[in-house]
């Protein structure tokens, strides 16, 4: 009892609240055990592989199961689910439940996925990104199911996909996702045809060279007083763009085993020097200080005549309108005699804890079917890397799409992935670290040792 005769005091209230809160914290902090990967039944089949969606064998239980599909939201989320009723009609034992996840920013999507994993409520099928997110790390920790046995059991034909897309979704020889979105990397050059016509410069030819870019760029660059009205060429100043140039010259940011950086190799240094010279020697490309947002935006605004970019620029004509005509070419071949490319892959994985692996795999093959892929391409713009999809007239007749197909037909190798799966961290270090060159703070030769050290620091971190 308190001095004032009160039995219910502040102290007792705080003590009771603290006890309740402590209990709540202990409950909330109860540890989730990582899921153990489930193993699908293995059975061999001697029949020819099928490219069609896997159907029910007819002997499955009549009970309907719900397969939850986590997918990233594009411009039209409902477009993704448009064909769901058709699948459910053909597979009455499966109900598909689409669960879109916001994709305003990559980190937003992956943070949401991590929350679902922690809560054990990830969808049966999940969209993943092999290059931009923690996909392989999550595979390593056992969150996704290997698909090899399911593929073999269903006699599913993996040959219908572009071959280079499958290794990106695999770890230690096992496949963990089917490829659902792709583009061949930043190996395309989009150009302003009107600017070329005005400057009386021939359009890029298939056998053009890096020196041609410089020569054309000089003729296309227009200045008035001390301001540049139009730059001849805009280099993409991000790691995955440099990697394309590196590969054309026969090298890469990191070694094949993902443990060592090769950024100090002569081919890599010369690649970075070429980009640097565009800005500070030839003065045909904007420096970092002269880029307001991205070189893609500057191209759309008519401030750059040619821009190194990727397949996402195919939607630019809608933004450009009548201001000018655009077309696409591929980057020139590098010193290794090839055009450098790096396939960017999104995939559809299966949660290792799914209760219905057979049904989920059937739904997965539906999401990878030609019909579904063409619907996606027509509505929300994703391109499933199936050879029959990329050869379909509905896509080939799109402006500049043929160039994307041509690039993918070359089977560019997958995204550079460090051994410790710290891809995002590596990208950030490269993007920030190379800015010293593009801002003129350091020459490439002087800055390479520090860049190498910073990259190696990331590569040396544990998995």
């Amino acid at each position, binding site marked *: 009892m308190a*001095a004032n*005769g009160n039995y219910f005091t502040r102290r007792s209230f705080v003590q009771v609240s603290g006890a309740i809160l402590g209990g709540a914290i202990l409950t909330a902090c109860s540890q989730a055990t990582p899921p153990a990967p489930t193993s699908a039944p293995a059975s061999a089949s001697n029949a020819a592989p099928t490219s069609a969606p896997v159907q029910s064998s007819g002997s499955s239980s009549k009970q309907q199961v719900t397969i939850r599909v986590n997918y990233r939201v594009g411009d039209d989320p409902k477009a993704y689910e448009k064909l769901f009723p058709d699948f459910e009609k053909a597979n009455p034992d499966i109900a598909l439940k689409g669960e879109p996840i916001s994709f305003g920013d990559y980190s937003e999507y992956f943070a949401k996925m*991590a929350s679902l994993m922690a809560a054990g409520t990830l969808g049966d099928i999940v969209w993943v990104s092999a290059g931009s997110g923690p996909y392989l790390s999550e595979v390593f920790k056992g969150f996704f199911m290997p698909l090899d046995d399911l593929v073999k059991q269903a006699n599913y034909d993996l040959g219908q996909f572009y071959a280079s897309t499958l290794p990106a979704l695999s770890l230690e020889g096992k496949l963990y996702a089917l490829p659902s979105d792709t583009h061949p990397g930043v190996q395309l050059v989009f150009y302003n045809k009107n600017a070329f016509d005005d400057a009386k410069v021939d359009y890029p030819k298939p056998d053009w060279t890096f020196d041609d870019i410089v020569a054309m760029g000089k003729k296309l660059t227009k200045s008035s007083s001390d301001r540049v009205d139009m730059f001849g060429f805009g280099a993409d100043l991000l790691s995955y763009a440099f990697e394309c140039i590196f590969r054309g010259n026969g090298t890469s940011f990191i070694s094949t085993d993902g443990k060592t950086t090769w950024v100090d190799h002569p081919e890599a240094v010369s690649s970075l020097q070429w980009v640097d010279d565009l800005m500070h020697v030839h003065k045909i490309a904007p420096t970092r200080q002269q880029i307001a947002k991205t070189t893609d935006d500057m191209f759309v605004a008519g401030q750059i005549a040619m821009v190194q970019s990727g397949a996402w620029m195919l939607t630019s004509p809608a933004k450009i309108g009548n201001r000018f005509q655009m077309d696409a070419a591929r980057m020139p071949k590098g010193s290794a005699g090839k055009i450098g490319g790096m396939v960017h892959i999104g995939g559809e994985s299966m949660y290792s804890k799914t209760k219905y692996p057979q049904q989920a795999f059937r739904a997965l093959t539906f999401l990878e079917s030609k019909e579904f892929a063409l619907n996606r391409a027509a509505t929300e713009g994703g391109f499933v890397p199936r050879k029959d999809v990329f050869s379909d007239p509905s896509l080939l007749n799109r402006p500049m799409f043929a160039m994307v197909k041509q690039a993918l037909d070359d089977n560019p190798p997958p995204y550079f992935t460090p051994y410790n799966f710290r891809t995002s961290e590596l990208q950030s270090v490269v993007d920030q670290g190379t800015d010293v060159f593009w801002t003129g703070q350091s020459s490439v030769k002087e800055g390479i040792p520090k860049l190498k050290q910073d990259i190696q620091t990331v590569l040396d971190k544990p998995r």
Partner: protein
Amino acid sequence: MGDEQGARSATAAATRLEKGSWWDRLLVRRSRRRAVKGYLWISPWLIGFLAFTIGPMLSSLYLSLTKYDIITAPTFIGLSNYVYAATRDAQFFPSLLRTFYYAGVSVPVGVVASLGAAMLLNQRKRGTATYRTLFFLPSLTPVVAGALLWQWIYDPQFGPLNYLLDKIGIHGPGWLGSPSWAIPAFIIIAFWAGIGGNRMVIFLAGLQGVSQELYEAAEVDGAGAWTRFRHITLPLISPTMFFNMILAVIGALRVFEVAFLTTSGGPNYATWFFMLHLYNAAFRDFDMGYASALAWVLFIITVGFTFIQVRWSSSWVYYEEG
């Protein structure tokens, strides 16, 4: 003396309960009920505070001592995260220094500007309502919209700012794309967003609390405008200024949104502030344990700065009550 009194009233209450009339017993029960009612009325806030503020803080303190990636269970590693931050994280100290630089300039500039705006509005001249609206509007602009707006203003090639500078013969810098001008560019944005916000309103309230008689008396004694400001206004609004400075420092140390939206910490880490470093540790690298440690470091630094300001205030903050 107080203890004696309390003990006496407790004894009296107990006696009343035991031996008193029904009226006495009713009164004691009523006061207890009043206390319970009071706690019940504030319990929603209290529970929310405990569950959503104190609870997560304590959780993050524990997580700062672990290796935790959200998707697997935390592993206790003691103070390793803090040791890593102090000894091996290449951006720990640089990001702190950048944040201090930003805060060190934006806080005094912002506070002085807000005071100036408040003094202008306190004149009660014609057009005050219009000025008040114009000053307050930037603080109502959503952060994302403001960031996009300033990205356009700062466009080095075609933005209006460099266009106007060109007109007066100055070649404008790269602003957000320039390592040396990026932070000053952010300070300007903070100045624009903060000059007419809550800080100005608080200053205005403080100014309106100063008695006009003091000014009149000073005028009679021949004091000029600057003398009146220095010897009457400043001392009497010093508590308000102290409050605003504390909030301004806390806000400035947490600078994040504009850097995240416009520069992503570049160019070459020029705008890689501490909060952005923390965000990347949490949501790019999924190293929640380390991010929690960084959060606690920032908390301790913020508390430290606040403590310093509180101690310093005794030399310049004047409270009329004495």
